[in-house]
């Protein structure tokens, strides 16, 4: 019988992360379904010199960058959508503390696809012919950059197109809506690139808003886009993407989105944010208290709640799921 994979957040970070690693996370566009609680624990355990692979920047990368935990990052988009520029990331880039290698929102998932297939390169018809190709933050003196997105000759026509380097991050911490204790996962909302990321990463840890019985997976196998056989561990953590949203589960906390980004604009604000929202907030009850129980109930009343209805009968209660 397959093993259960439920472990605590702290244990997951202890076991699967190290200074200097290639860490992939983020998930569904800048302000949704981000495994940010994993990033909060990375800070509690003082991980540093991370090489972040984020399809898009999120509040997680914004926070890790603000806190000085990331020295290299690769992104397709580095803002916070209508919440504006990501102040923590921006500060780290502008100061030169963090080298941000720019790609596009299609380039990153194609690089993950190439990593998943173990291709040596991926054909590129986007992100070429622009400064995304010619400028490299990882090789700033190489201009126009020759190694970031080199050209490859199509053997059928002799024409040249670009070639992306595939991505194979050491670890992906992936936010999912529902997981079972074996590591099967259901995502509600756009997958964005979580399917490809789960296959490209060397190891996968799921961060699930809720746990369900495996019978749920057998009822909806076509929804299980991340199967247990590629998952190392499952961390259950409600409101794991807060202050960002999780379709079917909760809305974004717009007030905290703004306040958090404002805090990350300065060293002092970042220190205060870490003191107030990260240090000591090590278990789920303390975390929900910190969000505010009223706020939690408010955010849960999402217009997307109906998306969860077909799965509610299989939700596991808290006492069934303690690792």
């Amino acid at each position, binding site marked *: 019988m397959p093993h259960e994979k439920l472990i605590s957040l702290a244990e997951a970070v202890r076991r699967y992360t190290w200074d200097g690693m290639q860490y992939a996370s983020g998930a*569904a*566009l*800048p*302000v*949704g379904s981000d495994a940010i609680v994993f990033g909060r624990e990375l800070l509690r355990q003082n991980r540093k010199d991370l090489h972040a692979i984020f*399809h898009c*920047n999120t509040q997680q990368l914004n926070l890790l960058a603000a806190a000085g935990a990331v020295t290299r990052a690769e992104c*397709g*988009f*580095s*803002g916070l*959508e*209508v*919440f504006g*520029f990501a102040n923590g990331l*921006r500060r780290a*880039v*502008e*100061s*030169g503390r963090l080298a*941000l290698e*720019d790609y*596009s*929102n*299609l*380039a*990153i*998932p*194609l690089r993950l696809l190439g990593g998943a297939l173990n291709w040596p390169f991926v054909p*590129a*018809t*986007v*992100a*070429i*012919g*622009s*400064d*995304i190709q010619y*400028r490299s*933050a990882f090789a*700033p*003196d190489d*201009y126009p950059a020759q190694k970031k997105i080199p050209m490859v000759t199509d053997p059928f026509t002799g024409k040249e*197109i*670009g070639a992306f380097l595939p991505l194979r991050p050491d670890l992906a911490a992936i936010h999912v809506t529902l997981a079972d204790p074996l590591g099967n996962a259901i995502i*509600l*909302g*756009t*997958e*964005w*690139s*979580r399917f*490809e990321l789960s296959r490209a990463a060397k190891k996968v840890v799921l961060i699930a808003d809720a746990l369900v019985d495996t019978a749920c997976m057998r009822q909806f196998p076509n929804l299980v886009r991340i199967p247990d056989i590629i998952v190392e561990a499952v961390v259950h953590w409600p409101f794991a993407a807060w202050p960002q949203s999780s*379709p079917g589960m909760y*809305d*974004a906390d*717009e007030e905290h*989105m703004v306040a958090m980004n404002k805090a990350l604009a300065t060293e002092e604000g970042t220190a205060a944010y870490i003191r107030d929202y990260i240090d000591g907030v090590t278990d789920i009850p303390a975390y929900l208290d910190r969000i505010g129980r009223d706020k939690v109930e408010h955010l849960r009343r999402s*217009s997307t709640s109906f*998306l969860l209805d077909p799965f509610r009968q299989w939700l596991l209660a808290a006492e069934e799921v303690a690792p």
Partner: protein
Amino acid sequence: MSGLDYTRQEMMAIATGREIRDGELAIFGVGLSMLAGFFAQAHHAPNVRTMTEGGVYGATPVGGLPWGIECNRISSNATSFTNAIDALGFLVASGRCDVGIIGAAEVDKFGNVNTTGIWEGPIGPTFRPPKTRLTGAGGANDIACGAKRTIIMVSHERKRFSEKVAYISSPGYLEGGDARSRHGFNGGGPAAIVTTLGILRPHPETREFELASWFSFSNIEEIKANTGWDLKLAAGAHEAPEPTADELAALRRVDETGALRKKG
């Protein structure tokens, strides 16, 4: 003058929406671009086939402008959720998407877009950090490379309209002429730059953007003064029609929280 009261932002959204034709496959970004696109759907393009770069299909925003593509305001009535490779790759980079609307922090006379950063002076041979880091290219680069045509929406200020952008995040016509054809793009390039003052269109050969239309509240001189290159007048340049009552009503149904109504 029509006597209707509307803002420059509303005019820009309506002028952008007029570029979208019924039945087209169209991709919208978040914010203004989405309002312009859903205005077109509400007004004259009921069969426009819309998507976002997250692979959200069949959705219309409810309860206000989404704060992101993943926002629950657009996830709550979708008919399909797929993924980024599907939307930006299969449907856009492939050359299949008819039209995409993108924004810009800075645009140049060949329609190249910078959303990556502001440097003091040219970047130079070493890629030094920008003075002000912006958001990066996101899906706009993929739309700029792959969509059959793109519409660029940008607030008309001189600092945003440069002879040459400091950094090309999303390619327009590059150095102009047929420069795009040297690359493997599947898309055609920008068809228009729609601003808070008017509409610029590319010359058919040089691909330099020229003033094609001004709005009733703007004029040629004001637009030239707010453009960082020597803006030429396109053949047949004319004043753009003012919003009709129907257009304005449709836009305001879409923009239910009044994001565009603040006079600016």
